[in-house]
Structure formats: structure tokens, C-alpha cells
């Protein structure tokens, strides 16, 4: 059977990491076709064509698909759905916006944040903030799935496969893009970084976050935050790690001034090594930390930055 992988593309740029991880997850399900959608998608398609294990690439380049609004993008995917038993994507906010809409249009359930493929019908996904892992078997003819990227290795690259153009599908113009507010950063992307340094409410202010960022920059790390830090305006929303934010599994996760609520742990407890710096020795974060340092972060974090 065939699998359609919807590539993650932002303003014409392919997210190689997220897409290649979804390809790894999709491979056991059948021949992989990658679909590149955007107002600019050709360059992304060229890159996607080099992902190992991909049999074919489809390119849907059309002004309709600028900013990947859910209504036209879902309509396009549905127009192509016929030959595929599985329609999948990496579990990004973009795919989480679009694929449930696709699933309902096809009258099937959606499986989100899948962490393992058991067989063509059976999948594992976390529920209750990762406090339980559920194995579910789908009775639907087609499966619509998003894969949690932190649990799959990215496929490698090889010789490019062929790219075919696909026509745009009819779509009602119900929504309109107005603006993106995206902070440019030289730091690695949070979900693919090897090291993540996160700050919580204990950091105290937006200005103080500079000490978290200084440690991150010393380590070549991405910066993360708890919900409390984001809600308090210390950090932007796209830094939130957790049940309802981003899920990360880097080689090293450094949590500073974060208590370790279950909703936060849901987003980082699969990290290889966890370091916690917290002044409260009873903080639950220490129960998952490989190395815990009971200390005032304002003293310990700059010292760590200096000594590394």
C-alpha cells in the first residue's frame, strides 16, 4: 500500500528534520510519496526528493497555499487521498491544524502524536500528558496520522527521486493571512536541538532570561520555557515545552527554575540526560533528573556558563 507524507514547509523552506522523521515513521507502512505544498514548494520538493526511502515526490505549488491555511490545504490533500491507505505528517502545529480537518472530510478518525507503529492498523500514542501509553487499532479504511518527531530518527539522504506536479484543488476563500510574528534566531530549532536549556517561573523576568540564553549560546543549545514562564511574559509562546507545547528529546536538557509539573515533564522526560537546577530540594523535577543541583539559579547558571 502507499503512504502520503505531507512535508513540513514554512515559507517555501522544507523542514528536513521533521519531514525526514515522518518518513522514517511511514516507511514500514508502504511506499512513501512526499507531498510538498506551498506558494513556493519547488525547492522544498527538490530537497524532499533526496530523503532516503522516498519513492516519489508531489509538488503542489500555488498561491492558494501561501501560509498553509487549513481550508485550501486540507481540500488539496483530500483531492489526492484516493490511492493512499495512510496520510501522515510530522506532529507540528501546522499538521495538527490541517490533518484533523482532512480526517473529518474523509469520515475517518485522526491519530495524533503517534510514537510507534505496531502494524498498518495499530499505533501507540501517549494520553493523559504521557502518563499512559495507549495502543489503538483503527477500523477506518484510511488512517490519518501525525507522528511525534521526538521519537523517530530522521531518514538519511540519497539520490533524488522524480518530482511530479499536482494541480490545485478547489477551495473556498474563507480565511486570509494577515501577519506572522516570528523571531529570527541563530539558535538551533527547539525540536531538533541536541541540547535544550529551559527556564521557568524561577527565572523571574524577561530580562533575567538572558542568563538562560547565555548558557544556551555557550552550549550551542536551543532555549525552552515552562508554561509559567510564557504566561508571565518572560519567554515567547513558541518556547513552551510540555503537554500542550513542544515535545523535545535532546541529548541534554537543562531545566532552570522549573518545578517539574507533569505537564512540563510530558514535553521533556524522554531527553537522554536531564539536569535540574532548582533551589527547592523537594521540587518534583529532581525525580526525573540525572543530575540535580540544589542551588540559586542566579548564581549557579552564570557559573556553569563560565566553567563549560
Amino acid at each position, binding site marked *: 500500500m502507499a503512504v502520503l507524507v505531507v512535508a513540513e514547509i*514554512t515559507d517555501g523552506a522544507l523542514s528536513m528534520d521533521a519531514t525526514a522523521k515522518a518518513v522514517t515513521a511511514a516507511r514500514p507502512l508502504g511506499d512513501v510519496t512526499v507531498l510538498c505544498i506551498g506558494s513556493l514548494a519547488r525547492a522544498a520538493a527538490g530537497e524532499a526528493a533526496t530523503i532516503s526511502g522516498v519513492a516519489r515526490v508531489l509538488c503542489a505549488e500555488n498561491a492558494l497555499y501561501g*501560509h498553509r491555511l*487549513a481550508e485550501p490545504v486540507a481540500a488539496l490533500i483530500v483531492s489526492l487521498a484516493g490511492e493512499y491507505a495512510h496520510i501522515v505528517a510530522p506532529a507540528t*502545529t*501546522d499538521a*495538527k*491544524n*490541517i*490533518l*484533523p*480537518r482532512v*480526517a*473529518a472530510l474523509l*469520515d475517518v*478518525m*485522526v491519530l*495524533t502524536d503517534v510514537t510507534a507503529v505496531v502494524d498498518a492498523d495499530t499505533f501507540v*500514542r*501517549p*494520553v*493523559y500528558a*504521557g*502518563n*499512559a*501509553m*495507549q495502543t489503538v487499532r*483503527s*477500523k477506518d479504511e484510511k488512517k490519518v496520522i501525525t507522528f511525534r518527531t521526538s521519537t523517530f530518527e530522521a531518514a538519511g539522504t540519497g539520490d533524488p527521486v522524480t518530482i511530479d506536479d499536482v494541480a490545485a484543488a478547489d477551495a*473556498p476563500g474563507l*480565511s486570509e*493571512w*494577515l501577519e506572522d510574528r*516570528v*523571531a529570527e534566531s541563530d539558535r538551533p530549532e527547539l525540536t531538533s536541538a541536541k*541540547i535544550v536549556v529551559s527556564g521557568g517561573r524561577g527565572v523571574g523576568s524577561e530580562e533575567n532570561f538572558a542568563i538562560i540564553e547565555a548558557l544556551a549560546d555557550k*552550549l550551542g543549545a536551543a532555549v525552552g520555557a515552562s508554561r509559567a514562564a*510564557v*504566561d508571565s511574559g518572560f519567554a*515567547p*509562546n*513558541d518556547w513552551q515545552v510540555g*503537554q*500542550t507545547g*513542544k515535545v523535545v528529546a535532546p*541529548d541534554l536538557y537543562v531545566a532552570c527554575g522549573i518545578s517539574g509539573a507533569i505537564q512540563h515533564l510530558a514535553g521533556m*522526560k524522554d531527553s537522554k*540526560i536531564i539536569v535540574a537546577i532548582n533551589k527547592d530540594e523537594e521540587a518534583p523535577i*529532581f*525525580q*526525573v*533528573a*540525572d*543530575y*540535580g*543541583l*540544589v*542551588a540559586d539559579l542566579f548564581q*549557579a547558571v552564570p*557559573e556553569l556558563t563560565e*566553567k563549560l
Partner: protein
Amino acid sequence: MKVLVPVKRVIDYNVKVRVKADGSGVDLANVKMSMNPFDEIAVEEAIRLKEAGKASDVIVVSIGVKQAQETLRTALAMGADRAILVVAADDVHTDIEPLAVAKILAAIVKEEDPGLVICGKQAIDNDLNATGQMLAALTGFAQATNANTLAVEDGAAVVAREVDGGLQTIKVTLPAIVTTDLRLNEPRYASLPNIMKAKKKPLDEKTAADYGVDVSPRLDIVSTAEPAARTAGIKVESVDELVSKLKDAGVV
């Protein structure tokens, strides 16, 4: 303009979840249940639209077990005008899938003709993040998920959405489906007098069959297991010791 808000009764976010020993699911008997936190945000937003004169009525709907009545009363106490309870399960352990929920909601949308439906982006039990998008598909409405801000004007809603790269602002034609993210607002607590008043507000009771929707699941739950446990590590005494441990581990 009516605003419709679906609310779900879920395990309280503070309760430690226990997986049943036989792997059949999570134990929900005798645990504290509350309104899904994202739905509280949705109710709050709808009430604020009413207070700002942009909405006429706030109608809350819950689909599930009979006990979801309590969740609806909470929403009424916060300030919703009336409620619809759709009984679709007897056992508190039965989770009605988003596709079936969306079908029932689509039928209610047909009856009530709201200008806006505000849903939580995700239920904290199944963590699916799907109902709003599915309802948008079935109604053919536009969708704006993960709302960080919402402004309603001239037959449209302008929504700043929390996305992986930051914020994306879009404008959707009404009627539309909006789903809430954490920063949209801080929900109010219901005051005691309002809790009393809520008891007298109308609450209609229906069944899934009234809407002709088959709620049987598309996904069979094969098993539910504990996640791999992490063993606690050690406490280090100083930054120097931490640095040397991290060097030994080869991560820095």
C-alpha cells in the same frame, strides 16, 4: 450572534493518573473531574464577547456521560446562558471520539446557527487536538486554531494563532470555528450567587440518537500501559561536580 462552546468533563489536571493494572485503561472511578482547562478558556472568551456586546447568547454543550451536567452547570455559573447535555455514554471510562463529537456538534450548529464556535484546542485526557478542526470540516466553516488573541468585527474574526514559529495572524469569515490556546485569557471563578443562579438556567437533555449520530468508536483500544519510568539520578554538590559529570557523560 450566538456563540456555541463545547465543554468536556475530564480528569482534573492536578490528579495523578493511574493506569489500571489489567491494562484496560486509566482509573477514573472516584477521581476528581473538572472542565477541560482549554474549554474553561473558551467559555471565558465567549462570555467576554457577550459582555462586549458582540455576542447575544452563550450556549454550552457537553457530550458524554450524564455527570457532564456538573461541567455544564460550572459553565452556566461562569456566565453562559443555557446548556445542552448530549448523553452518549453510560460508563465514565467511555471517551466519545472527536469525530463523533464533531458530528453531534455539527447537528447542533445546524439547529442553533451560531456565528462562532469556540472550542478548547485539546482535551487533556486523550490529548487528541482534533474536535474543532473536525467540526470545521463537517460544517464547511473556516477554522482558526490555537488562538492567542481573538477580535470579532464586521462578520469576521481576527485571530493570532500560537504556532511553532511564533504567532500567525489570520482573518476568518464568520461563521467560524476558533480553538483556544493557554494565553487567550484567564478564566474567571464562578461566584457563589452565580452558582446558585446557574441552577435555574435552562439545561436541555438529549441523546446522540436524537441527532442521528453513531458514536461507536473507530479506534479500538488494545491496551493502556504505564510509560517507561525514569529513574532518579543523583544530586551534585557543586557546579564543578556538575561540569565534570556532564563531561564524563560526553554531552558537553
